[in-house]
């Protein structure tokens, strides 16, 4: 028995040393670099899960076709967070402890991100997130958290400004218990108050079959604009109950609640005229156009584009430091160097980025989701929003700003 084992060990050792010498594209003896992707494939926030998964795989394919990172293949390990913090923690543990991922991308619902963030910074793994709650980047994350989605205060500010633009005097917010709900109420109310109006809100439970009593409470405030902070399943029911109650004032939602899935889920008259603010992907950018063409889809949501960028940013950060150990700390320390370096060569694809880095040039990657410039706390700066309105069962873009 022993001799067999020894022979195998010797054989494996010989193969490994041969591989080290041979001029292959990927170092055969080395494990691939694993990038974790934790996304909602199921549950209340699952509407973008499928395209997020495709986008992550597309990024890895492009990176590997360009020769990988420092001679190593990258592999995305995709896990389902089930839109549920508890399931997300289990999945994140697997990605960190078993798969030894250098970063975790995707992470969409704020409750999910809040739950896994401590695991990431404790495990020295970079967390790239598409969540909005302000509380996330206030965590003591030691630089391990990068957020590519606009924060709740930024989104709330945009919603507040838009409500004022629509002439709102009495704003009422309705949303489920989530890390961002109260923050929305405060931000939007403050903006409406500044223009002479008043704001109020109600936080409800997200798994109800009827929101009649909550709608009654909202209508007692006599709002001229109602803002929805929920996800699709609860927003669908709230909208129906508002319609039944005869409310025909203005309605504004955010893209995680008012989107194409919602339009398909309720009769057209129920959401007619409802506005939605959508963090916009960089739709004019060549990175966006290339990704859309590669995935053969007519268009992509911002969140899937962000997941694509999460994979690319990690790969470029590691490629920019070929002599450092390929781990989360290296990603953390070099991520800004490849996305916001003022002198860097502007690149919009992982292939161009990897080629330039291999030639010793610094790069500045502008992704499919935007220019990817991060503040010190990890929040992304300079994002665009699309303003859409439900008209006869379809979402129509009214402006991009």
């Amino acid at each position, binding site marked *: 028995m022993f001799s067999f084992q020894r022979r195998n060990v010797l054989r494996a050792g010989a193969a490994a040393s041969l591989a080290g010498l041979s001029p292959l594209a990927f170092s055969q003896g080395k494990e691939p670099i694993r990038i974790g992707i934790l996304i909602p*494939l*199921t*549950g*209340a926030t*699952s*509407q973008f*899960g499928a395209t997020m998964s495709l986008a992550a795989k597309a990024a890895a394919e492009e990176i590997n076709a360009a020769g990988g990172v420092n001679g190593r293949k990258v592999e995305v390990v995709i896990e389902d967070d089930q839109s549920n913090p508890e399931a997300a923690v289990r999945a994140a543990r697997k990605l960190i402890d078993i798969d030894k991922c250098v970063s975790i991308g995707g992470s969409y619902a704020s409750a999910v991100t809040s739950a896994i963030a401590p695991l990431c910074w404790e495990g020295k793994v970079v967390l790239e997130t598409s969540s909005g709650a302000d509380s996330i980047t206030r965590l003591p994350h030691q630089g391990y958290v990068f957020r590519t989605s606009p924060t709740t205060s930024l989104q709330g500010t945009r919603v507040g400004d838009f409500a004022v633009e629509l002439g709102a005097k009495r704003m009422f917010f309705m949303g*489920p*218990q989530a890390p961002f709900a109260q923050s929305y109420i405060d931000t939007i109310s403050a903006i409406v108050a500044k223009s002479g109006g008043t704001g109020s809100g*109600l*936080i*409800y*439970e997200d*798994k*109800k*079959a*009827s929101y*009649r*009593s*909550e709608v*009654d*409470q909202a209508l007692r405030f006599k709002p001229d604009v109602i803002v929805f902070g929920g996800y*699709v*399943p609860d927003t*669908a*029911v709230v909208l*129906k109950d508002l*319609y*039944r*109650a*005869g409310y025909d004032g203005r309605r504004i939602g955010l893209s995680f609640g008012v989107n194409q*899935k*919602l339009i*398909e*889920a*309720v*009769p057209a*008259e*129920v959401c007619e005229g409802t506005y939605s603010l959508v963090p916009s992907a960089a739709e004019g950018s060549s990175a966006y156009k290339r990704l859309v063409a590669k995935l053969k889809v007519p268009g992509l949501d911002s969140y899937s584009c962000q997941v694509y960028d999460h994979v690319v940013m990690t790969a470029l950060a590691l490629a920019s430091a070929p002599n450092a150990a390929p781990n989360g700390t290296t990603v953390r320390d070099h991520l800004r160097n490849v996305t916001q370096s003022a002198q860097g060569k502007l690149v919009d694809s992982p292939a161009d980025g990897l080629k330039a880095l291999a030639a010793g040039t610094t790069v500045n990657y502008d992704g499919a989701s935007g220019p990817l410039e991060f503040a010190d706390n990890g929040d992304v700066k300079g994002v665009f929003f699309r303003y859409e309105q439900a008209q006869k069962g379809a979402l129509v873009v009214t402006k991009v700003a």
Partner: protein
Amino acid sequence: MLLELIQLIVNGLVMGAVIALPALGLTLIFSVLGFINFSIAAQMSIGAFAGWLVNTQLHWPLLPVLLVAFVVAGLIGVASDRVALAPMRKRPSSHMALMVAIVSIALNLALENALRFGFGSGLNSFEMPIARDVVIGEIRIGPQQMHNLGIALLVAVLLAAFFTVTRVGKAMRAVADNPDLARLKGIDPAKLSNLATFIGMGLAGIGGALLAIDTSVDPSTGARLLLIIFSASVVGGLTSLGGAVLGALLVGVAAEVSLLAIAPVYQSAVAFVAILAVLLIRPSGLFAGTAGVRK
């Protein structure tokens, strides 16, 4: 204040009506088979999907839609019971009811994920017009929700008639009362358990379809309400069919009226408190005993 209270009670009755049918199904299955079948949540979603398919593809109206929801959920209920739960029940053990209940949770997840595999996680809508509420005095009432209440009450009456008038219904009650004695009398509990599962899951299917017409169709449609349905059955006594309807209405009204005192975000705590209070004060349920008490 009084108007507000009345409105909350009306809203609670509406809410209760939606959960009354699945609660009836859960109660019926418990009465005859002696265990809580938690796969009722997935059967609600199955009923919702079955109804949604014939409504959107074949443009069938409400009543045939509900019939399809009943039959499809009933059949899948029986089939999955035969495959997953019946073999468990054949193993005599003092923990049998608990074991089968736990396996039914697994069955629930399997069925829900099968739906997800087949239809995706997205939300779907019935092709049915949505009616504005009728205002009587200052109280708003949803016509559609009143239909739900009417259908739930009608089904409860039909079931009551079935159990008191028909031979099969009486046999089911006999099994519910004392399975051994019923067997001595030549009643085959296995056959009746199929029928009870068919009717129980069929009711869940109708409940799911009605719920989905109000809300939306997706694989978690039923799962969202499982706790409150279970709570309604417990409050109703778990063996009384009338109790299940009353329990559902009571839990619905309690949950809505509680909004006067607590924030909406803690509402499902009311269902927990209802279960706890009933188990502590009157363990047999508020309305137990009208259709036979299982020992």
